[in-house]
């Protein structure tokens, strides 16, 4: 029997060379129908959303073709199949992040998951209570808290970022006080790629008796996450950034929190009993899932979790960071080019596969339009993090964010086109 090469097995490995892992990425590309449609596409906007492998698309469609019925209501067998698949998806995803199924609430995405906590947990807070965020948060982990602050008179405090794009960790012990009720922080900056020391943040917060919410939107696509090992209280993530469908995400909440908190939205499925005068909420997690849930998307997301596990989740982020490192060294000497965040030479493991740049005299939109001419897709703008852009003193940057199908060739092409852009634009 012929033994399969590493590329043929299509599994990233932590101890393999970047060339070997790049060959894996090249093979994996074949699993993504988008690249059949656009063979020249160099998709490096994975921070915004990832492409979807065929197995995820088939799993999602399979729910519609094999078990399209509403969940938790239908007595007939088709409905039972739908409910079974939906709850199997919850179990798969619970196992994927080390949680129990009843701690997994399906939401539309990270944003809705954080809004859920801002409302339900926010209900339990009083004027003068404090929440600690960071200066690098995506608007999704900033605006819901600002809205809560407006509703309830909550005070927001911020862990500052330093010039190298890392958090000023000396600030957290000072910020944690008697009125601190929550620390909400992103695991990975969607602009700078900084991987935050969340273990330390959780240890310090818990030391002060304060729960922690993690925004895992950028973290979950790059490496496995275990909510128990981390001892996180809440974790929010999106499906569509981890090779899953749009319109679905997860809120993980520790059982005792979910049980204690009031429901968020009202409607069907979140109740156990309703009278004209009032209602009794359903048990967890259903009390947070009002209305018909994203059934097919949950099934698709469970397949995405299986897919990302199969391809070597543990080595994927490391590979993407390696690509980013090579890109940075290739472009560092382009005149007028600035790399945001930590500079080449940063400690190993502190930066994800995200590289945001500015180019003197060239607006990021114009740079993105130029790159598009060469089928290179980059995000240009403030990346939904206005305060961070202000802190860095940049209006607009262009961001390259890598995924499982990006190869070394992609990186060298990008570097070459950037050199050309600097001369021509």
């Amino acid at each position, binding site marked *: 029997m012929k033994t399969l090469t590493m590329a043929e097995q299509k599994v990233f490995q932590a101890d393999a060379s970047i060339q070997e892992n790049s060959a894996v990425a090249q093979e994996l590309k074949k699993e993504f129908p988008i690249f059949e449609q656009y063979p020249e596409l160099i998709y490096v906007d994975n921070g915004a959303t990832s492409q979807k492998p065929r197995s995820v698309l088939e799993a999602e469609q399979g729910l519609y073709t094999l078990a399209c019925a509403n969940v938790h209501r239908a007595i007939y067998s088709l409905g039972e199949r739908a409910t079974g698949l939906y709850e199997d998806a919850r179990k798969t995803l619970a196992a994927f992040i080390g949680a129990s199924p009843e701690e997994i609430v399906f939401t539309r995405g990270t944003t809705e998951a954080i809004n859920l906590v801002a409302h339900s947990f926010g209900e339990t807070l009083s004027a003068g209570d404090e929440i600690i965020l960071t200066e690098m948060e995506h608007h999704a982990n900033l605006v819901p808290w600002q809205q809560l602050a407006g509703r309830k008179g909550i005070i927001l405090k911020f862990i500052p970022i330093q010039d190298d794009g890392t958090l000023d960790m000396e600030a957290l012990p000072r910020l944690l006080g008697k009125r601190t009720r929550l620390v909400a922080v992103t695991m990975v900056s969607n602009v700078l790629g900084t991987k935050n020391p969340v273990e330390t943040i959780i240890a310090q917060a818990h030391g002060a008796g304060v729960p922690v919410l993690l925004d895992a939107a950028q973290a979950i696509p790059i490496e496995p996450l275990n909510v128990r090992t981390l001892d996180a209280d809440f974790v929010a993530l999106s499906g569509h950034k981890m090779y899953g469908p749009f319109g679905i995400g997860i809120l993980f909440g520790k059982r005792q929190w979910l049980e204690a908190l009031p429901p968020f939205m009202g409607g069907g499925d979140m109740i156990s009993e309703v009278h004209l005068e009032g209602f009794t909420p359903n048990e967890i997690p259903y009390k947070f899932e009002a209305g018909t849930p994203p059934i097919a998307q949950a099934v698709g997301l469970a397949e995405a979790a299986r897919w990302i596990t199969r391809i070597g989740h543990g080595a994927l982020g490391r590979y993407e960071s390696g690509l980013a490192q090579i890109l940075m060294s290739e472009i560092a000497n382009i005149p007028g080019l600035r790399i945001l965040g930590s500079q080449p030479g940063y400690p190993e493991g502190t930066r994800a596969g995200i590289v945001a740049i500015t180019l003197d005299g060239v*607006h*990021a*939109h*114009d740079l993105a*339009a130029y790159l*598009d*001419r060469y089928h290179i897709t980059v995000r240009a*703008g403030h990346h939904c993090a206005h305060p961070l852009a202000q802190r860095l003193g940049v*209006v607009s940057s262009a961001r390259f964010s890598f995924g499982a199908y990006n190869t070394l060739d992609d990186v060298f092409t990008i570097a070459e086109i950037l050199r050309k852009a600097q001369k021509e634009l």
Partner: protein
Amino acid sequence: MSDNFDSLYEEIIRDHYKNPQHKKPLEHIPFVQNPSCGDKVRVAITLGPDGTIAEAAFDGSGCSISMSSADVLADLLAGKTPQEAKAMVELFLAVLRGEKDPSELEQLGDAIAFQGLVRLPVRLKCAALSWRAALEQIEKLL
């Protein structure tokens, strides 16, 4: 992908971006901003003794589309009555919104360069920015 780019980067746009004729520092006029990219622009309109626009100028910062569009606009505003200016700006914005055919831009000089944008929803906002700013100023003159 590439044909969009080519139509976008017609010489007209590049020329207005690199060598704007109507860009100068302005004061006391609020910026109109595009929150999705941070571009900002403000437009000043001066009426002459005959009631037509004697001069239009802009300042701000942004991409080649937003800045060139502002320069083209300023060019076109000169000599128009406020009523004519309003009708022209509304026509341009209606084309960008897809409510009027892009060929309508043929009557608007260099603004024809932006007709290809109708297929690029994100960059429409860049082109519309200064025209929205101008509309605010024109409405004060009516």
